[in-house]
């Protein structure tokens, strides 16, 4: 058990901007847990950069007191990796939704997973496109009726945790925004993890997803740590990732140590954060460079 920061301590991450989410939106819980996790890890708001794509959940950087970027639909993870490579002394958290990260941005997601840059990616997975008023998303279950699938969804839902595990992720977890403390604990572990960490959060859309409600999840969720789950076992993690209709695993499915990208690239590993590097070429490097052309 992690001793979480108090709401008072977490309040240093409170922004003056009030969230624009619908009352009851799961994303409130995500914001709250993220603020608690950052406070628990004693992160200074000046050293935190929260980067999002586009969507309801991607408005989150505006609601947390830190540096932030609100980028393009699906591109938050790509931008966030650039921020971290630019200055790896910063704590970088990417946030977004299931459409943003598992739909239009799935290419960046899967490559970020295998690249293992030290950052955290929080996906507020509500299984629907909310900001565009309710179309099927990559994680919408089969048969669910949405504005774009009036006869019921005929595509299989994507399994983001399985995808991340197979992509070579070093940290894969799932949280539930109806379980604020559990989620804050998972986020604390994710941000503390050295490498790319994925936190898929079940974050109900109270307006457009009438199937996957808080009540629906509460009937199914269970905590992996209470079942003696071995988070170093790929087999156990894959097994847990496959649960859905009957029961849904919460917690850290998988966590292993792997060298991060910035530990392996000499430019960041040996010269320190890129932003501190001296610009231009020294006379000796310059002369040597010209000589190669002669």
């Amino acid at each position, binding site marked *: 058990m992690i001793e979480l920061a108090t709401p008072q301590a977490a309040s240093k991450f409170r922004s003056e901007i009030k969230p624009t989410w619908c009352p009851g939106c799961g994303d409130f819980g995500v914001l709250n847990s993220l603020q608690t996790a950052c406070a628990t890890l004693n992160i200074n708001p000046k050293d935190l950069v929260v980067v999002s794509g586009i969507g309801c959940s991607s408005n989150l950087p505006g609601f947390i007191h830190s540096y932030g970027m609100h980028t393009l639909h699906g*591109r938050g993870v790509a931008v966030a990796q650039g921020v971290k490579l630019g200055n790896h002394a910063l704590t970088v958290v990417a946030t977004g939704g299931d459409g943003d990260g598992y739909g239009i941005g799935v290419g960046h997601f899967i490559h970020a997973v295998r690249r293992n840059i030290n950052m955290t990616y929080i996906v507020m997975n509500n299984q629907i496109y909310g900001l565009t008023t309710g179309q099927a998303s990559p994680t919408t279950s089969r048969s669910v009726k949405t504005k774009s699938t009036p006869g019921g969804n005929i595509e299989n839902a994507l399994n983001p945790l399985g995808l991340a595990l197979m992509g070579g992720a070093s940290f894969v977890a799932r949280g539930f925004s109806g379980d604020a403390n559990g989620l804050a604990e998972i986020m604390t572990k994710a941000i503390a993890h050295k490498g790319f960490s994925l936190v898929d959060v079940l974050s109900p859309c109270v307006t457009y997803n009438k199937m996957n409600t808080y009540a629906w999840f509460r009937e199914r969720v269970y905590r992996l740590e209470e079942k003696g789950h071995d988070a170093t076992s790929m087999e156990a993690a894959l097994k847990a990732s496959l649960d859905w209709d009957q029961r849904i695993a919460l917690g850290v499915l998988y966590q292993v140590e792997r060298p991060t990208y910035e530990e392996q690239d000499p430019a960041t590993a040996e010269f320190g954060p890129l932003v501190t590097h001296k610009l231009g070429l020294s006379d000796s490097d310059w002369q040597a460079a010209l000589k190669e052309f*002669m």
Partner: protein
Amino acid sequence: MEVFNRMERQSAVVWIGGAAGDGVASTGDILAKTCSRSGLHYFAQSSYQSVIRGGHVVYQFQTASAPVYTHGDNFDLLIALNQDSVDLHIKSIQPGVGRGIVFNSDKVKLDAASLPAGTVAYGLPVGDLTAEFGRNPVMQNTLASGVFIYLMGLSWDIFEKAVRDQFGKKKAEIADLNVKVARKGFEYAQSKFQPIKDIVLKGDGKARMLMGANQAIALGAVAGGCTFYSAYPMTPASAIMHWLAPRAAKYGIVMKQCEDEIASINMAIGAGYSGVRAMTGTSGGGFALMTEALGLSGITEIPVVAVLVQRGGPSTGLPTKTEQGDLFQALGAGQGEYPKAVFAPISVEDAFHATVQSLNVAEKYQIPVILLSDLLLSEHLETVDPEAVTNKVPIERGPVVGSVGPDYKRYADTPSGVSPRVFPGVEGGQHVAASDEHDEDGVLISDIFTNPSTRVKMVKKRFRKMDGLARELAFQSIVKEGPAEADLTLVGWGSTYKTLKNIRLALEKEGLKVNHLQFRVAWPFPTEAAAKEWRSIKKAVLVENNYSGLFAKLLRQETGLTVAHHIRKFDGEPFNFSPLLERVKGLLKPGAPDIQYLVSSELDIPIKRVAVTA
């Protein structure tokens, strides 16, 4: 300019033809180094005739005692590595004593009687000559190189060192073998042939660099303080990545190959936000994917430089051919309106300086900058004086604050439109760089906060930056050469500069009064400078490597100015000197039409000729 003296020439045009995989490029590299280290000027370009079986490649170079501006015309010497090379190129031989074709007489058929008088079929019995070395098929290149050195009267020692450098110390045995084979060719030529008497290649002893614009852009990037380059492989831009990758660890720069061009530019923008000078590079197809992110850079005011090396389009188009077809893609990239700059460097040297300038302009004005090159400029090879480039370049980052007060607003509405930046890590500077429209603090106004007056203020603030930028670039955007007033003005943009310069020099030599305007900045368009120049133009011809006259459209759009004569080429090849010279000369002849469009692949068959009086 001895280039035009047909009696005794201090220049030579040499072609090396063969199938892909015959070693055309590596032979070219060795000969390039030999010429350059002999103090000669050098200009080469490779043409890939992918329609011919085996993928025919012809590497064309011109080398001379005086500066050379193009790859030249008909060849003095062809090194034919296969039968196709002879069959395809025999008609392009320059008549003259000793000119000829070097070929493997074991395999390639060449009827000496079919050659013009005085020219020579330099047949090499490759099998016999290389028997002692084990008959490796690639040996014919090396053998022919030795013959070339003898025929042109170049220094054996310089050549031998170039061969050894090509293979490096790790492959000393292969280098030894190649030197021996080349020597065999040299000695065979000594025993059978005469050096070409009226070609005199005398160098000035000066050490010059051999590079194309891709290398110049990469060098300009590191000299200009770029520490982050992200890209996805795409011809003809990949050589920038290839130059940076092996040097990145030494220089402390991140060279990140990404999953696609969308990630490349978005990562660069992320790195830019954290405070580093970031750049990305691609060709037209990849650039099309980047366009949404250019708008992100525009509205978040995060600097980024995107190199766009044009090739023949549309779609996959002509991957290994040149074209100036992406001007409007660069100008119109992305949805909505945002300030940007588009540089179109005119030479290898200028590509270096334009890269540094792009990095500076991007940061000073907090805008995306597009650096437009093309396959010709990026992939050709020429000698460049080392003094033409320098590491003592200005690195101008614009206003960046290291500490902020309580009133700090990231997007403060300043008179210049430029708001001081703050990088993450600074206490009190916290803000969101938002792709939605936002206020001076960076707070979104897009949805429920919609506020027309704030929107208007922020758009005007961003575009105000263009005023300063236009002032800064106003008189650096057009290069003018030749007399102030002339009977004919050659107009071009970007990579056509050296070809047009050569045309002007040739016409000048004939006593004609011709000058030359070359645009090196496409945006902000140098309206005032162009208008000033047009006041003294009598007759102008706009030469560009595309079908529909993109620059002519831009000129008219921005100034209302028109040009009466147009010469365009869109077959994927650059302009060749002689046919272009003839066309340009035709404009000065009595009775030339007032308005003329020559849109042709060969330039000698006008597809469309319009003669209309305005």
